[in-house]
């Protein structure tokens, strides 16, 4: 257990403490207790920068299931560190913001912060695990915590709908990803990402390579809301705004980006990866920005904008992956695309985080997020307005904000596609810069709408629930920090980010491009002269302003896409169908009667066993290797048979209980004869306790009436039971007579003393060799006793109340 592991699970441990803080210190907002943790973690991870900037990697392993190659290996490299810093840094700002956003009297803060910390720990686990299975476990944990956070206001119908939708889509993708991980394991024999990357050249021709690639991409695309899986993200906006700012713009949705970046060295060897990632990215970019323009809710605009920006980063990663097909670092045209992806990832977190917080402030102070009702807020909230201007202009790609830099690099990357003569991409290459440019125009339009429809224009106080005023200072701290980062990054991109963050991240994405002595040199320039990129930006601004002003005239364009064809309809339809279908299927055989279930089970048992005995010709009778028959054993056998048969004909309840007890005691004598002292003892005691238990209940149990059923009913039962009895006998005989494998018991006999220092093999197996069985067994026992306790006690209290 290293400090690094502790750092990853610290949020999970902290989450356990939250309810204690909440209960004991009701006067203080719980957020103040949570806030120190991400700050400490941020500082801790910050200290790794000096390591990773020299391309060094920190790895710590904690054994989990070493026999299956599943170990909690934490790995800090440039890429993981970038995400860890985002998670903890933005996390701290969001928690600070939430302290002012969520009322400590009205909200259940303990659950909120527990979920949030759960998410933070899960996210750190995803980006810092080198083992795919561990990463997958954390990945699903992010889906769960996101579900809980979206449904935080669970009394709202829409919250529950959004939570369920995000859960279904992301977990579906997660399972596909698990399939991809298993396929990767089949090809390479390893779950370690480092190990798999080193084998990437060997597996590319493997027949499972393409399926693995598709499965992994499905996981990444659902998580990062790529078209057509983006539909969950707008509905996820039902979450409290701090959650949207944190999960659904800065961190969780970027897990898919992370996965694509992380596995680029494995899959990018195949052109399909470049095609799919770049293609889906660019389509998402367009569709997201196009849909954002028609939204009227501030958070919906931001949601679609996030979808589109994620598409932008994804397409850059796709194009950048082509770099692996060219040797070396110098003159490699496509590295710039990946650089832009990493750079924009950071920029997007800063400006989108601040914009979400602005939307939250507007909602908080006016009571609505509908831009048709808002307007003229500039005079009431000057600081919020300034932050909004910085965020939106950066998003639109205007100087002097960091969005301008990454947008220029994005255009450069897309223009390089024209020169790519690999994987038959030339035929459609021209589409990439064109779509990118059109999407940027729409981005410009919705960015302008976001800020100007809200803050300028006519103030409409009659439509607002509250009288607007500037937000409290605490709520403004976090967005102000983010907004100032937007400007600072613009002026000092190289000294702040290039060497410290971006180059190490590139080294992690393209390990094979680095020879000894070379390193990635990232230079982000502000002014490149009159390049095509600059003219593209100017074109975006010109056309954007024109279209923004004439928006009411071309609004009808959106009517061309009927609601019926919308993906949401499809999703709802699938959910409805599967619910009603499974309901019909289930009710058709789940009759609610124990007897029918038992008949199903026993009939199935007879049929399947009889068939396999016949088909496999498995029945065999070995009369040679049998042990001798003693007179005592025979007597005991007779007792058991008589006892068992008598229970069927028992007339009174006492008789049947005693007969069952008699059979039990006889069985324990069997254990004595068959050299099983532990079993004999246990059976003896347990039989005593059981009989006592039966007798306790005895007074209350009903009199055993004669089974006055029809003959046909009895006959069916008799037939089935004889069938079961005969089948079991046949199976027992053939299992005894066919010995295909050597018994594994010799291992236990030989190792009991040397490995576990015990002499009683049965006990050593129970507590040591097969301790898992015992652990689960006592858990089951504990659950059973709690069930019994609940069954009797809970009902009693209810009766008392009545």
């Amino acid at each position, binding site marked *: 257990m290293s400090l690094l592991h502790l750092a990853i699970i610290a949020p999970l441990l902290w989450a356990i403490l939250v309810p204690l803080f909440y209960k004991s210190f009701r006067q203080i907002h719980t957020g103040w207790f949570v806030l120190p943790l991400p700050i400490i973690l941020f500082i801790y991870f910050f200290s790794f920068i000096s390591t990773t900037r020299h391309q060094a990697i920190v790895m710590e392993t904690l054994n989990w299931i070493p026999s299956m190659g599943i170990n909690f290996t934490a790995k800090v490299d440039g890429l993981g560190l970038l995400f860890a810093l985002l998670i903890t840094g933005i996390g701290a700002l969001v928690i600070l913001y939430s302290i002012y956003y969520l009322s400590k009297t009205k909200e259940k803060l303990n659950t909120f912060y527990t979920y949030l910390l759960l998410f933070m720990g899960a996210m750190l686990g995803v980006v810092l695990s080198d083992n795919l299975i561990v990463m997958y476990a954390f990945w699903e944990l992010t889906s769960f915590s996101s579900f809980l956070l979206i449904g935080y206001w669970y009394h709202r119908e829409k919250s529950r709908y959004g939570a369920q939708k995000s859960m279904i889509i992301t977990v579906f993708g997660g399972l596909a990803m698990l399939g991809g991980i298993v396929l990767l394991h089949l090809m390479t024999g390893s779950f370690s990402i480092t190990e798999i990357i080193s084998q990437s050249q060997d597996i590319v021709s493997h027949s499972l390579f393409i399926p693995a690639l598709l499965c992994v991409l499905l996981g990444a695309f659902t998580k990062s809301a790529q078209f057509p899986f983006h539909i969950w993200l707008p509905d996820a906006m039902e979450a409290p705004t701090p959650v949207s700012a944190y999960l659904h713009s800065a961190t969780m949705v970027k897990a898919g980006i992370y996965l694509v970046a992380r596995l680029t060295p494995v899959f990018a060897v195949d052109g399909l990866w470049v095609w799919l990632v770049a293609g889906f990215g660019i389509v998402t970019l367009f569709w997201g920005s196009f849909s954002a323009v028609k939204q009227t809710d501030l958070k919906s605009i931001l949601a679609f904008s996030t979808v589109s920006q994620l598409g932008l980063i994804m397409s850059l990663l796709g194009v950048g992956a082509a770099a692996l097909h060219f040797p070396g670092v110098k003159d490699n045209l496509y590295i710039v695309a990946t650089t832009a992806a990493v750079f924009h990832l950071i920029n997007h977190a800063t400006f989108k985080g601040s914009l979400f917080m602005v939307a939250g402030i507007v909602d908080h102070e006016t009571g609505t997020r509908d831009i048709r009702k808002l307007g003229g807020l500039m005079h009431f909230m000057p600081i919020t307005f300034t932050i909004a201007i910085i965020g939106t202009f950066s998003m639109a790609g205007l100087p002097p904000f960091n969005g301008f830099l990454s947008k220029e690099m994005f255009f450069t990357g897309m223009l390089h596609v024209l020169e790519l003569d690999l994987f038959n991409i030339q035929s459609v290459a021209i589409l990439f810069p064109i779509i990118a440019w059109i999407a940027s125009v729409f981005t410009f339009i919705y960015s302008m709408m976001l800020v100007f429809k809200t803050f300028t224009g006519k103030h409409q106080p009659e439509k607002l629930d509250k009288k607007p005023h500037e937000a409290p200072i605490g709520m403004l701290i976090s967005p102000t920090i983010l907004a100032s980062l937007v400007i600072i990054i613009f002026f000092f991109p190289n000294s702040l980010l290039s060497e410290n963050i971006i180059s190490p991240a590139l080294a992690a994405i393209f390990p094979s491009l680095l020879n000894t002595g070379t390193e990635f040199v990232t230079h982000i320039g502000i002014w490149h002269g009159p390049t095509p990129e600059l003219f593209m930006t100017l074109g975006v601004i010109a056309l954007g302003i024109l279209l923004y002003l004439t928006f009411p005239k071309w609004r009808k364009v959106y009517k061309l896409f009927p609601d019926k064809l919308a993906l949401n309809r499809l999703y709802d339809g699938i959910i409805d169908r599967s619910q009603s279908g499974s309901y019909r299927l289930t009710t058709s055989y789940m009759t609610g009667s124990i007897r029918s279930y038992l008949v199903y089970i026993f009939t199935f048992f007879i049929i399947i066993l009889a068939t396999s005995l016949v088909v496999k010709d498995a029945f065999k009778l070995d009369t040679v290797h049998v042990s001798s028959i003693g007179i005592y054993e025979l007597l005991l056998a007779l007792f058991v048979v008589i006892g068992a048969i008598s229970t069927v004909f028992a007339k009174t309840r006492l008789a049947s209980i005693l007969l069952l007890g008699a059979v039990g005691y006889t069985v324990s004598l069997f254990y004595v004869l068959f050299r099983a002292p532990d079993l004999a003892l246990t059976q003896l005691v347990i039989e005593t306790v059981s009989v006592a238990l039966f007798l306790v209940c005895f007074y209350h149990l009903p009199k055993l009436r004669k089974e006055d059923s029809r003959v046909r009913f009895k006959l069916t039962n008799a037939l089935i039971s004889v069938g079961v009895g005969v089948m079991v006998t046949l199976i027992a005989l053939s299992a005894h007579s066919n010995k295909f494998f050597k018994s594994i018991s010799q291992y236990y006999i030989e190792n009991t003393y040397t490995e576990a220092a015990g002499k009683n093999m049965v006990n050593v197996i129970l507590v040591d060799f097969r*301790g898992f069985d015992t652990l689960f067994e006592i858990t089951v026992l504990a659950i059973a*006793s709690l069930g019994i306790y609940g069954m009797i006690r809970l009902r009693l209290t209810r009766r008392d109340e009545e």
Partner: protein
Amino acid sequence: MRSNNNIILETTMKVVLFIIVLFSVYIFFAGHYYPGGGFIGGLMTSGAIVLLLIAYDIKTVATILPVNYRTMTGIGLLFAIGTSAGSLLFNVPFLTHAFGHIEVPILGDISLHTATLFDLGVYLVVVGVTMTIIQTIGEDE
């Protein structure tokens, strides 16, 4: 349980109870080397308590042994999981046990096992569960 006066049973119980309990503890500790262990030890202890319940009524037993058996179950589970998870701290797989020998004055050479702690968990769970069940039903009159 009924509160009937059964002098013979009560008197015998006072003697027999300690023998059974002592025997069950012996069997629990002997488990690693001879027949016995947490399951049997636990069952035997609860058997002894059940005998006590038969001899006296449930309220008397509750005052003699003021134990919350549900808490006992929980503690037992914690013991078992704690012992298993403890091995993770030493960077060995879950449920790896350790053992060693120490010299104790008078008693001489004693072998110590973490497996015994695990088995203690089993013992506590078994006693806790059995007694919870019987006590709950017994009190429900």
